């Protein structure tokens, strides 16, 4: 495709009659929303993070104050451990399942399996948490023998604080993995047949083909998945929040950083502290995304 990206500077006449106003007119609505609900809230958060309730500039006082809250470091640790479990399991299992599906099953079998894997995707949000509250409650769970085999006889034992990172990983994986398996499978389909053929003639088995040919060619999709999964994982809220409603008092309302911002803003009336934590989360997410994007050449044209 020959792209003629002429810089539409002030001195240049745009191609085509009337095209000068058309572009800006078509993007006007979106630009308004982008400013109102993307740019402005960030500006607002930064402003609040560096001021006090009276609007006086306070430097990093809000950041220091919230970091010294006795729950802050715990919440950081919780989210970090959860992210580690969630990202590793997502990459390992999604790639492995897509490769297995691609190699083993063909036609209707593969399509059916992908559909079955995708079904829980419809239960995003509160629904997935509710389903897993039942799955993890030994009195009603269909896998209660598995739970009791692992030494869990009551709901309270299952949702002990030490288990939460694993449980949230299971819930997130159950809801989100199917869509990514579909994406990875499609990307595997896009690898030219002759490349795989060449590997086979060279004597590469399933394992070597996957490791040396297919996975490197999936790299961009894996990076894309990790970035979005990271962004999603950092904002953990509904899972711990619903669990705290249902935990018979075991899980607190301050497990994740977003719960903490909610608590600062709406329970402790510390809007500026809440804004400081929000800004930290944004900076961390943006930096991690930027790091991955830069290292992987994600936006390079190939």
């Amino acid at each position: 495709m020959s792209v003629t990206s002429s810089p539409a500077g002030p001195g240049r006449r745009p191609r085509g009659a009337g095209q000068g106003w058309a572009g800006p007119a078509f993007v006007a609505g979106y630009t308004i929303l982008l400013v109102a609900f993307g740019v402005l809230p960030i500006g607002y958060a930064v402003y609040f993070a560096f001021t006090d309730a009276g609007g006086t500039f306070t430097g990093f006082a809000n950041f220091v104050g919230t970091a010294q809250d006795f729950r802050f470091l715990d919440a950081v640790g919780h989210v970090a451990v959860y992210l580690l479990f969630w990202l590793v399991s997502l990459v390992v299992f999604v790639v492995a399942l897509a490769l297995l599906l691609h190699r083993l099953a063909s036609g209707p079998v593969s399509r059916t399996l992908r559909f079955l894997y995708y079904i829980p995707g419809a239960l995003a949000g509160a629904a997935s948490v509710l389903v897993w509250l039942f799955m993890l409650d030994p009195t009603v769970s269909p896998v209660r023998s598995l739970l009791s085999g692992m030494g869990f006889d009551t709901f309270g034992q299952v949702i002990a604080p030490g288990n939460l990172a694993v449980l949230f990983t299971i819930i997130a994986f159950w809801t989100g993995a199917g869509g990514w398996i579909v994406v990875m499978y499609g990307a595997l389909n896009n690898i030219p047949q002759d490349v795989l053929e060449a590997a086979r003639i060279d004597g590469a088995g399933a394992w070597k083909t996957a490791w040396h040919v297919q996975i490197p060619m999936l790299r961009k999709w894996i990076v894309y998945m990790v970035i979005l999964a990271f962004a999603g994982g950092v904002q953990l809220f509904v899972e711990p929040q619903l669990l705290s409603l249902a935990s018979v008092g075991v899980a607190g309302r301050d497990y994740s950083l977003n719960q903490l911002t909610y608590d600062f803003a709406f329970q402790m009336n510390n809007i500026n502290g809440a804004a400081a934590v929000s800004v930290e989360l944004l900076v961390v997410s943006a930096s991690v995304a930027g790091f991955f994007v830069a290292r992987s050449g994600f936006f390079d044209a190939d």
Partner: protein
Amino acid sequence: MLIKSKTPATSSTSYRLLAGSVLTVFVVFFVLPVLWLVLAATKTDQQLVHGHPLSFGSFQALLDNWDSLTGFQDGAILLWLGNSALYAVISLVITLGVSVPAGYALAMTEFRGRRTLLIATLIVMLMPTATLVVPLFLEINAARLIGTMWSIVLPYAFYPFGVYLTYIYFTTAVPKDLLAAARMDGCSEFGVFRHVALPLATPVIALVGFFSFVANWTNYFLPYVMLPESDQMPIQVGVGNLLSSVPQFNPTAGSLAVERPQLALATLVAITPVLVVFLFAQRFLVSGMLAGATKE
């Protein structure tokens, strides 16, 4: 490439067996909870605890569960469903109305600020929206919209992912020459969009519509903060509310207790619209999710 050595043919059967069982275990993992949920809605709480987990209860129990579920706070669940539908559909209409023209213009025309807009869209897409909830609350509060449906409808309507999808679609699937030809025939810029680009964009409109609907329908944090009154809640926040009325999960639940099969039924009701939309959108999904992959 470092490919050497041969795989002995004998290992391939056991490999297939192992791989096949891995795929099957994951089928159970993904499907069993859904199956259990459907069956749980047909049971009484007694059957749920004492019966076989994967047995069918009775249609009578299902009807009874439905009656007590709709009886909760005078049909609150129907109200929540209606709220969700209202919020999701209005924001969906706005999303499509702004993001399709925007994606089209970004892909097909040159104007000042185009690059800036594209980069901003990518950055905002990568930003976790839940971390913006508190700042959004402050902004909406300053605009005095807290407690109105616009406090969630307008933020939902801002959907950079939809713009990005439309942008990719128009750059890859619609040739610029086609538009140039229409312009030559005397079509106005709006006419080109209306009569040439839009009819070709049906798949991407369906796709953006699907993703945006699901994202709006399943959002929890934003309405949880913006619409605290029970009669304004969408279904997601509503079922969370129901959850805290189940004595087995929350011992402090009062006299208006909800039983577990009714909560299971409420969960099913909450996901049904997503399933229906999913079935309709399914044929667009795989091709659309891969819009970027087939770019070459």
